[in-house]
């Protein structure tokens, strides 16, 4: 899937690198014991450390270290047994210490990879440059008062993993796929909930363009803090086209930080390179270097869950699913668990079909996730069983599915209650056929006169007569026999 921009003079390729800030799933902050619940009252989750009070000192939260290592392992990355926390110095009202504790030249995780499965079936490997731990800042609220800014320090000191990709992506679609895949891995690992709308996962996109075939990278712009995957893709496309326009009109792109405005779909300059902060990084003397041994890493590795790539491979080999179906089913861990519950001791292809074609569509329409599905995996499995043992037809099953969705009941109860059991006895079907033939002597004549296509009409009529419950095979067989001249 190539994404190229045809300009006046050249065909342009876009080069994208992403920096993702993923909030570490942990009960306490990176360097203090304050809690991290989302949506708490302003300034209700702030320790003296988070507020930058005089004489306060940071102490590393080991859970956050473990989560970072776990994530590094999930990204098949180099784990650095020795890393260093540094101070990144800048002034802002919601940065109480006047510096952010981050990691600079010695991050906890080094190079890794993420594999993207693009819709056209092509796999793309995207390099991870590094992952480091850092503190989040607080939040400035500018719209509560005409001249004042309010500060909420609940987020101050919350642990973030900054995950930096190599500039390996070549289209907005790949950027979107990267974010979805990364989010999927983080959720599998339980190291970040990936909720972009809550700010638990935020993305900065570095974008540049170059004429197709050109070696080396041109000047990039960084689009800061985009808060949905769709907006990231839109912002990249807009920014790439802006670069092309500038180059083709003889201009130069200057390195700068830009902001995406989702209202008009444009990016605009935040600060130029000249205005860029000099962060004056230096190792934080309040903290010792972060050091652990290989056994520590091995103990975390031992608890790693099966990740989407491995699970997809297993679904293909174990259940005989197509790569596409397997890929869809493993995106969310919860979905894969649901599928496996449904598929247990049943036809896995039928299970995949019901989950993907019917359940996903319905849940999408209702705007709910699989964990809130009114149909449990157990009940969906039972529904498939009813088809398999000929209790109901596939067509009736779809009606039962709709009722299950609405009422949340088990399929057995619904079939029983509504009398939807399939009719396989010859008698009632023959009666219905007789009735239809008696009511439509003309049609019978026409059929017998050679109009074979009318068979479909007769099937429909008899089905109608039996309330759709006639076993389709039986019905066909008997109808042929009766209509025969």
């Amino acid at each position, binding site marked *: 899937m190539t994404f190229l921009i045809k300009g006046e003079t050249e065909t342009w390729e876009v080069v994208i690198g992403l920096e993702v800030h993923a909030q570490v799933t942990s009960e306490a902050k990176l360097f203090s014991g304050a809690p991290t619940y989302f949506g708490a009252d302003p300034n209700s989750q702030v320790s*003296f450390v988070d*507020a*930058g*009070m*005089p*004489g*306060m*000192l*940071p*102490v*590393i939260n080991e859970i956050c270290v473990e989560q970072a290592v776990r994530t590094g392992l999930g990204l098949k990355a180099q784990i650095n047994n020795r890393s260093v926390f540094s*101070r990144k*110095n800048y*002034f*802002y*009202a919601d940065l*109480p*210490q*006047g*510096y952010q504790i981050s990691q600079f030249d010695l991050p906890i995780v080094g190079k890794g990879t993420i594999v993207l499965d693009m819709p056209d079936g092509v796999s793309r490997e995207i390099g991870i440059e590094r992952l480091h731990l850092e503190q989040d800042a607080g939040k400035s609220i500018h719209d509560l008062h005409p001249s004042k*800014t309010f*500060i909420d320090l609940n987020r101050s000191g919350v642990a973030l993993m900054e995950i930096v990709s190599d500039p390996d992506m070549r289209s907005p679609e790949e950027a979107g796929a990267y974010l979805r895949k990364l989010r999927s891995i983080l959720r599998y690992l339980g190291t970040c909930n990936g909720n972009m709308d809550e700010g638990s996962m935020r993305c900065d996109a570095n974008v540049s363009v170059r004429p197709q075939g050109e070696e080396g990278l041109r000047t990039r712009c960084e689009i800061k803090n985009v808060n949905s995957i769709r907006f990231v893709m839109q912002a990249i496309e807009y920014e790439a086209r802006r670069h092309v326009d500038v180059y083709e009109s003889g201009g130069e792109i200057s390195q700068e930080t830009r902001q995406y405005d989702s209202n008009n779909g444009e990016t605009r300059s935040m600060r130029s390179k000249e205005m860029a902060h*000099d962060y*004056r*990084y*230096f190792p*934080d*003397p*309040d*903290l*010792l270097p972060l050091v652990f041994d290989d056994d520590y890493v091995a103990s975390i590795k031992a608890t790693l869950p099966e990740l989407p790539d491995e699970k997809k491979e297993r679904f293909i080999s174990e259940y005989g699913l197509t790569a596409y179906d397997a890929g869809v089913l493993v995106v969310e861990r919860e979905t894969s668990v649901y599928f496996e519950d449904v598929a247990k001791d049943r036809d896995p292809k039928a299970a995949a079909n019901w989950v993907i074609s019917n359940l996903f569509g319905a849940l999408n329409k209702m705007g709910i996730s699989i964990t809130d599905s009114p149909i449990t995996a157990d009940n969906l499995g039972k529904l498939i069983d009813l088809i398999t043992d000929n209790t109901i037809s596939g067509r009736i099953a779809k009606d039962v599915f709709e009722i299950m969705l609405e009422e949340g009941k088990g399929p057995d109860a619904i079939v029983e209650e509504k009398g939807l059991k399939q009719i396989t006895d010859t008698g009632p079907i023959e009666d219905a056929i007789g009735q239809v033939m008696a009511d439509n002597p003309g049609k019978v004549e026409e059929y017998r006169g050679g109009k074979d296509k009318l068979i479909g009409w007769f099937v429909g009529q008899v089905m109608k007569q039996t309330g759709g419950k006639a076993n389709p095979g039986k019905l066909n067989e008997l109808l042929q026999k009766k209509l025969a001249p």
Partner: protein
Amino acid sequence: MTELTQLTLSEARDGLRKGDFSAVELTQAHIKSMETNRDLNVFITEVPGLAIERAKEADHNRSHGKAGALEGLPLGIKDLFCTEGILTTAASHILDGFTPPYESTVTANLKAAGAITLGKTNLDEFAMGSSNESSYYGAAHNPWKRKGDPRYLVPGGSSGGSAAAVAAHTCLGAIGTDTGGSIRQPASFCGVVGMKPTYGRCSRWGVVAFSSSLDQAGPMTRTVRDSAILLAVMAGHDAKDSTSADMPVPDFEAALSGDIKGLRIGLPCEYRPDGLNSDIAALWDKGVGWLKDAGAEVVDISLPHTKYALPTYYIVAPAEASANLARYDGVRFGLRIEGESLDDMYAKTRAAGFGAEVKRRILIGTYALSAGYYDAYYLKAQKVRQLIHQDFVSAFENVDAILTPTTPSSAFPIGENSDDPISMYLNDVFTVPASLAGIPGISIPAGLSSDGLPLGLQLLSKRWDEETLFRVAGVLEEAAGFSGLSIGGEG
């Protein structure tokens, strides 16, 4: 009751134990001394009411057999330690009105042992200075004066208030902090014992930070024994400070055996530059003689990177300070001068809130960390710091302790060096290397200059070996027979 202020801390402790007097009497005597010595400006905040209240508690505790190690002993606390419910200023305008809702670990340890806080002692602003003159609250004065010279002298710094308070008998002991000599230099100037423990021995939690990799709390007392008693209570591992060491705290007082036979004492040649003050050179020689007489073996050693210590210190300390002081921004506590914008508020607040020396160090530190200069300054300074540390490690393979002068001069008149930062910085030339190496050091008052001012000798030992330091210091103290000021006395 005035004679109660003439007691050493250990004597007062023993007197309370024996019931010779009460904690209330002892505290009242010191409150009176604090009042009569107000001209020295050693306290920024006095808390006599709280002190009496605590003294009553202490007497009550003792009568119920619950006396702590320092039960009922009144102390001065450098105003760099956060004290719950008591104004904490760091001698800076920018902390106006800051009353912490928490207690530093070191002062909490003292409190838990029954010690009584008399007040918060003066210091150089944010502990940056060697004369106390950078205090927003005005310089503390040295209780000592030159013979025939009525001018007030500086007490040294930055823990000048604590040193002067102890020298003037306004408290039994005090605590200070030492970053590049801030305990040892004022102790030398005021004729008291000043002890900087190994970096990591005392928790830094709740101490207003100047230079995090160097700051270390320590006791300031009139005797070596008092120093050992106080440090034992102050020290200990604190999970809230990642740089605090999980090491057992020995019984330092028990280390005062008086026996140094066979110990090897090093004399670093680099500490005897051409032109070393002759009084100081002579005192150092005397010190060597006393230790030899006590059976120690004295050997010449070399600490070859000593000359780089001061420039290294003046990169590392300001660099860390430039970040540590960023939190004083007018947003959450202390002084705020309103401005047109956030940046304008920062600029106005920090311009008004910080004094000249603090601003100088923030600028030096910011420069040293800047893009393009980091490698040349900060990174190089860190490398040199390693070499200085290595000098000591090598030296301590052959010697048990090192003897040097504490300062290159005696106390000077207020105002004499205040317009010359370099000559001010040179005050710390003998104390800074040990700070950079993180090793313990102690200054013992050992004699008087020709114009009648106290002079200190400094002992250094390897990391975590404060016991040897106290042992040698005790011997030196006894041999020197230094007599401090009598109450409120002239030098």
